[in-house]
């Protein structure tokens, strides 16, 4: 009715409590005295008048209380009283306080930690102006909108020109197109590999970013087939390479040996998320920004490559954006079958798209910590239940005096609040420490990892879960205590016992805890088991003391156009790169400390390989639909020696295999098994199918399988060819694999100590091509395992915390039960019961609780573990070994939690126990 007035009088009541109370007294006194005065005027004696006035007024205390109620102050009084009583209760039973606080601290701490990470990754807006209006438009197959990929140039142009709901669209190419070599000629510094991105001129406006100094591209600088040699450099590169030169804008630098004008410097805080389709090992760091550099061929092509980013007009939702883009896509597909047939799109919020890979893991981790919190609440609830038993007399008395059930429940919840708050404070401290550790161990490319803080939103979240855990953990005991509380306990003359039902209830809580702990432990157990499998994977080659680096020439040095083939560009491959690779190889062989060196067109263990279609001479041709493909790996001589990949049959490549000799091929075991199951592959001929003048390759050897990545799910067939024998023409974007090679260097000692010697040696051969991505094979492997390792570690920690909490719960219920049955045990001992009988009694009860809990947990796990399937390698989500191990582990933990109560039961002295009553 008048909420403002109510609130005001309530607030006044709170803060001017004394004034209100004095006012009430004064008002009542005035009333009684005025009445007495009137009575005196009517002829009563002063004493008699005052007495009568008091009687007529009624109970002042009663009315004063009603006046407080009328002002809404009673609720506050009760809350305060309950809080005070809660704190007093804590002081009376410090064990309860400590155990509950620790339980809640662990639960709340884990939740705070994960929520802090979620907050900074998925919730806190990205650092772009009005970032909630930014969206990414993906191209998807029309049957599966989950499978996103980049878009073709023509799709970008089509959408950009037709959209009305988006203020503007921009695009960037996050693939290899922005990778440049910064030449050494001008400033004398070493050649350096730059990780660049190619931006459409409009992308700056879409994102709302401006260069720190200088300007962004203009449309005229990024015309199809006519690109101006201009570049924006990052703040980091500006400082690192150019010493923060204030005159940098307008200067020329050499990028891929083309003189390029620096037109601006991006601000220090500018970051673009990592293109989800980019290689796993690429850093999100951008050294420079280049124009899109579109060729007329690209515009005609169906091939993707562009990530489209759009800014919605104010007031339009993503859903509306999606609807509009769908319409335009359908129109494009209908009007231009050649380039857009079957075009389908998906519009995502920019933030969701950027941190897509982290969303599911983080949500799963949040679910895990929610489990942990439930277990800690159950602990507090269990402890409260036993305290409640002692308080049943009090509760019954209060009910008898007219306290409603709601009032009792409220009392319990409020009394429990101090514990929850202490747990919350301790939890925040715990998670702050946890966050520090997380920031130390998280992979460098974890989104905004250095910006994770506990901001207002995190603290509000903590406040919420403190309240929620207070309610969850005290509601059950309160309902239990107030249920039918009236008569029985009073009859029992204050004896603190529970009905069997209540004991069963508490056991039920512990079963629930056990079950949740089992689910968590099985999930983490599966992850650990799978991780061990991954680490122990037989790589098929030796990564120890192995260094890899990329040596890549420019497009201009590699190819000249040679027309078109099957709708793609055709390129003449210059002999220069291959000659340069051989020169580098020869030069490195002479460096002391290098035991062996070779090169390949892929990085070992990094998961990148090109698959090409092939046919085997004399075999029936595969049906059109099921093209057979294998990894295409061009290598130098000595590759298998350096990698320590054993030759199984036939011979290795050697000096006989020159550019002009018979084309020879080696295959891996899987290829031999899959395509030559009942015959000897040696001497058979294989023809690939991607250039006009294909020549057959004769298989001369079979080598052992090597994994392409430690996380590979299946071993693929592989064809190795001498790089010198590759065709003189290459099709489409595949020219790229001819422009560079990944060198593998086997060193005699710590490989990273060789890095400067290697760089110097390579510079002697070619001072304008950088030694890029120099790292050990071990690092390449670790990089791919980092996220998995992080999730495994977190989940294992949470699983262990859950186990400890469940063990505390188990201990609590057994200790209580033994305490309750002291008399019974006393009688048994007095009647000649043996140690065995007593132990049997205690453990039978425990076995029921643990058994049911574990069984329920196993059933739960079977339904839940499918969620982590994508994180499991080498085992399935129903891996029996893990299930058995975890079950046994929890049975042992549960039994261990009963040891102390069991000892207490054994030490019961019948004479004392029986007197106890």
């Amino acid at each position: 009715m008048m909420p403002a007035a109510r609130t005001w009088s309530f607030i006044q009541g709170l803060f001017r409590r004394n004034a209100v109370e004095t006012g009430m007294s004064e008002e009542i006194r005035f009333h009684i005295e005025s009445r007495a005065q009137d009575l005196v005027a009517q002829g009563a004696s002063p004493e008699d008048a005052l007495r009568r006035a008091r009687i007529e007024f009624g109970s002042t205390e009663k009315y004063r209380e009603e006046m407080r109620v009328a002002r809404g102050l009673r609720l506050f009084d009760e809350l305060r009283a309950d809080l005070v009583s809660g704190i007093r209760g804590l002081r009376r039973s410090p064990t309860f306080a400590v155990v509950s606080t620790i339980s809640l601290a662990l639960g709340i701490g884990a939740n705070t930690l994960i929520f802090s990470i979620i907050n900074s990754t998925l919730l806190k807006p990205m650092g772009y102006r009005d970032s909630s209006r930014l969206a990414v438009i993906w191209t998807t197959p029309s049957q599966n909108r989950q499978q996103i990929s980049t878009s073709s140039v023509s799709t970008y142009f089509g959408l950009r020109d037709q959209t009305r709901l988006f203020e503007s669209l921009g695009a960037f190419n996050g693939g290899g197109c922005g990778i440049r070599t910064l030449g050494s000629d001008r400033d004398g510094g070493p050649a350096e590999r730059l990780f660049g991105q190619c931006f459409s001129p409009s992308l700056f406006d879409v994102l709302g970013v401006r260069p720190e100094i200088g300007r962004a591209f203009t449309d005229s600088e990024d015309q199809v087939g006519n690109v101006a040699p201009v570049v924006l450099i990052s703040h980091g590169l500006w400082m690192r390479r150019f010493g923060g030169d204030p005159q940098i804008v307008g200067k020329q630098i050499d990028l891929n040996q083309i003189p390029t004008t620096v037109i601006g410097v991006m601000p220090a805080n500018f970051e673009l998320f990592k293109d989800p389709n980019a290689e796993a090992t690429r850093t999100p760091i951008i050294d420079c920004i280049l124009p899109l550099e579109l060729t007329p061929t690209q515009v005609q092509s169906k091939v993707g490559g562009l990530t489209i980013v759009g800014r919605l007009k104010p007031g339009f939702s993503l859903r509306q954006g999606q609807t509009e883009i769908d319409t335009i896509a359908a129109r494009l597909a209908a009007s231009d079958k050649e380039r857009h047939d079957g075009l389908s799109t998906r519009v995502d919020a920019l933030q969701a798209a950027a941190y897509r890979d982290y969303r599911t893991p983080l949500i799963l981790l949040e679910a895990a910590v929610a489990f942990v919190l439930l277990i800690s609440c159950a602990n507090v609830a269990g402890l409260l239940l036993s305290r409640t038993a002692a308080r049943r007399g009090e509760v019954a008395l209060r009910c008898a005096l007219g306290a409603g059930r709601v009032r009792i429940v409220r009392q319990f919840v409020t009394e429990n609040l101090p514990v929850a708050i202490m747990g919350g404070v301790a939890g925040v401290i715990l998670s702050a420490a946890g966050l520090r550790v997380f920031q130390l161990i998280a992979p460098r490319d974890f989104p905004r990892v250095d910006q994770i803080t506990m901001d207002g939103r995190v603290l509000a979240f903590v406040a919420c879960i403190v309240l929620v855990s207070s309610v969850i953990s005290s509601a059950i005991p309160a309902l239990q205590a107030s249920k039918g509380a009236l008569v029985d306990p009073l009859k029992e003359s204050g004896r603190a016992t529970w009905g069997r039902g209540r004991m069963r209830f508490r056991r039920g809580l512990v079963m629930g805890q056990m079950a949740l702990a089992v689910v968590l432990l099985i999930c983490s157990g599966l992850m650990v088991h799978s991780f061990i499998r991954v680490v122990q994977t037989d790589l098929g080659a030796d990564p120890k003391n192995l260094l890899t680096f990329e040596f890549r020439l420019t497009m201009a040095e590699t190819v000249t156009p040679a027309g078109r083939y099957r709708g793609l560009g055709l390129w003449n491959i210059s002999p220069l790169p291959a000659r340069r690779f051989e020169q580098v190889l020869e030069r490195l062989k002479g460096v002391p400390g290098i035991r062996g060196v070779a090169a390949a067109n892929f990085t070992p263990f990094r998961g990148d390989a090109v698959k090409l279609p092939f046919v085997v001479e004399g075999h029936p041709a595969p049906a059109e639909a099921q093209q057979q493909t294998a990894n295409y790996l061009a290598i130098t001589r000595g590759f298998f020696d350096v990698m320590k990949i054993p030759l199984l049959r036939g011979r290795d490549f050697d000096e006989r295999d020159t550019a002009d000799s018979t084309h020879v091929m080696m295959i891996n075991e899987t290829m031999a098994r899959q395509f030559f199951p009942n015959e000897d592959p040696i001497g058979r001929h294989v023809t690939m199918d991607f250039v006009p003048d294909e020549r057959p390759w004769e298989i001369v050897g079979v080598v052992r399988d090597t994994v392409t990545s430690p996380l590979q799910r299946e071993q693929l067939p592989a064809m190795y060819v001498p790089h010198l024998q590759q065709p003189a023409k290459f099709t489409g974007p595949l020219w790229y694999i001819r422009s560079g090679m990944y060198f593998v260097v086997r060193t005699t000692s710590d490989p990273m100590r060789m890095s400067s010697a290697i760089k110097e040696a390579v510079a002697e051969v070619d001072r304008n091509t950088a030694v890029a991505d120099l790292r050990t094979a071990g690092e390449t492997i670790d990089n791919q395992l980092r996220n998995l390792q992080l999730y495994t570690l977190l989940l294992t920690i949470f699983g262990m915390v859950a186990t400890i909490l469940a063990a505390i719960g188990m201990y609590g219920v057994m200790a209580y039960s033994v305490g309750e049955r002291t008399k019974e045990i006393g009688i048994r001992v007095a009647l000649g019961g043996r140690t065995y009988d007593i132990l049997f009694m205690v453990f039978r009860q425990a076995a029921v609780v643990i058994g049911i809990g574990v069984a329920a947990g196993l059933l739960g796990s079977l339904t839940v573990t499918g969620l982590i399937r994508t994180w499991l390698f080498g085992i399935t989500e129903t891996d029996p070994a893990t299930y058995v191990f975890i079950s046994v582990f929890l049975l042992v933990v549960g039994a261990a939690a009963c040891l102390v109560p069991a000892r207490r039961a054994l030490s019961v002295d019948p004479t004392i126990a029986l007197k106890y009553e």
Partner: protein
Amino acid sequence: MTENADLLPGTLDLLILKALSLGNEHGYGVLLRIQRITGGALTVEQGALYPALYRLEHRGLLETEWGTSDNNRRAKFYGLTSAGRRQLKQETQRWSRIALAMSTALGTQEV
């Protein structure tokens, strides 16, 4: 919230509003006015008046001010707010309708 058993629920609130519509008054004065306007027919335990006054103030129907009484003592005076006046009007109409309905009903039964 115990009302005096002699009163129908809500009656006391309405009587207070009515009494105060004649002008601001302190608690004891309100009691005297109620006794006067009801001809002493409706009686309440005197203390019951105060929770009702507080409730009405809390609902924003009354405003209060400390002042000096006729016998020259400090006293808390109550007065109607505009919301209070509206409420009084509505309640009076509602009451008249009920009273009419009741007396009609009871009258019919006697025939």
